């Protein structure tokens, strides 16, 4: 319990340890801790930013989906319209073709009938002359009576 040189020795030891700690131990540890603090702060900030980005992306994706749906609906509508148009066009064409065919057939029939009539007219003149010959039982000069017979035939 006597006070002696130990006191001075302890004081010197004290200074040596404090100096060593201040020089080598403390700055390294505090530096590491501050660095980690900064890292954590940065990480939290990044997470917050990512959250915001995610929200934004969600919004964007929804918008794009809606747009795509709208476009699809439009395309379908257009396709439907076009289909109707094509069917209508086909109908019109078919009708026109049918009309054309009918007209052509009618014209042919008329032509055929006219030809038959001409033929008939020719035959009627011959027949009438033959009949009149028989009735008169005499030879009639075909040349002199031809006009008469023709007039008769045209009245048929």
């Amino acid at each position: 319990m006597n006070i002696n040189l130990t006191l001075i020795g302890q004081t010197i030891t004290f200074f040596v340890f404090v100096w060593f700690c201040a020089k080598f131990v403390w700055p390294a540890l505090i530096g590491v801790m501050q660095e980690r603090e900064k890292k954590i702060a940065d990480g939290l900030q990044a997470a917050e930013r990512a959250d915001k980005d995610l929200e934004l992306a969600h919004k964007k994706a929804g918008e794009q989906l809606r747009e795509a749906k709208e476009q699809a609906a439009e395309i379908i509508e257009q396709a439907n319209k076009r289909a109707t148009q094509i069917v209508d066009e086909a109908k019109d064409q078919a009708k026109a073709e049918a009309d054309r065919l009918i007209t052509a057939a009618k014209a042919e029939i008329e032509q055929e009938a006219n030809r038959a009539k001409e033929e008939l007219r020719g035959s009627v003149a011959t027949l009438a002359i033959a009949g009149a010959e028989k009735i008169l039982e005499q030879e009639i000069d075909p040349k002199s009576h031809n006009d008469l017979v023709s007039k008769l035939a045209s009245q048929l």
Partner: protein
Amino acid sequence: MAGGQTSTEYIQHHLQNWTYGKLPVGYTRYDGTVLTEATWTSAHTAQEAKDMGFHAVHVDTLGWSIFLGALFIFIFSRIAKKATSDTPKGLQSFVELVVSFVDSTVKDTFHYRNRMIAPMGLTIFCWVFLMNFMDLIPVDWIPYFVANAVVGDSHFFFKVVPTTDPNATLGMAVGVFILMIFFSVQQKGLIGFIKELTFHPFSPPTKGAFIVLAPLMITINFILEFVSLSAKPISLGLRLFGNLYAGEMIFILIALMFGAGFVFGLFGGVLQWGWAVFHILVITLQAFVFMVLTTVYMAMAHDNHDEH
């Protein structure tokens, strides 16, 4: 309890440091031999240690305090060297816990820019804690082992708790005191420091008829301030010493019971355990108090009264 001792001898033996010092010429030693010249040697009795006076060293106190301080420095600097700012693991988390605890405590009391104070707080806290911690090791273990197995002299003095030696605690307090004066002079200049000691708390009149009273007031101020200044390191050192000395004394008294039969021994064991548990609080608290008071004194050294 070593064989053949009385309780008083046992206690006195436990309170004596291993003292290595100089004995004067013509000194009669414990075995009757008279020294023919001044000799440096280990004291063999308490009386010899006392007669060595100031020219002696407590080898056990210095040895243990240097060993424990080196242990602290070794562990912390090893961790500091390997420390990464990634997820801390194992010992690094513990070290960082201590460092951030000290850092926040120092920041609470010390508001100036000085990169010396926080590391000093850490050193004091850990070092004093480790030295106090030696108190929890049963009082006979290490001294008995050293005396009988290492030195081979059962009468060998050996104390393991440096902070129960006033030399150690006052030595640290003197270190703190030197720093206090150093920072005071550094911050306020030598004139400012002297003014702080002489112009407070009663500011002497600088003009008028009462100027004749100025020397008297300066003297009174100086006496007051000097006492309060020198009381700081003494109270700082003696507080730690007193707490640990009392704690160790109780451990020694409990240890006396181990030699007094089975029932007393068992009772002593229970007491020893209880006191050790309580002492965990004391040693931590005293280390903390020493650190906080050092920081407060440093803050006072940086305070400039002239600015008010």
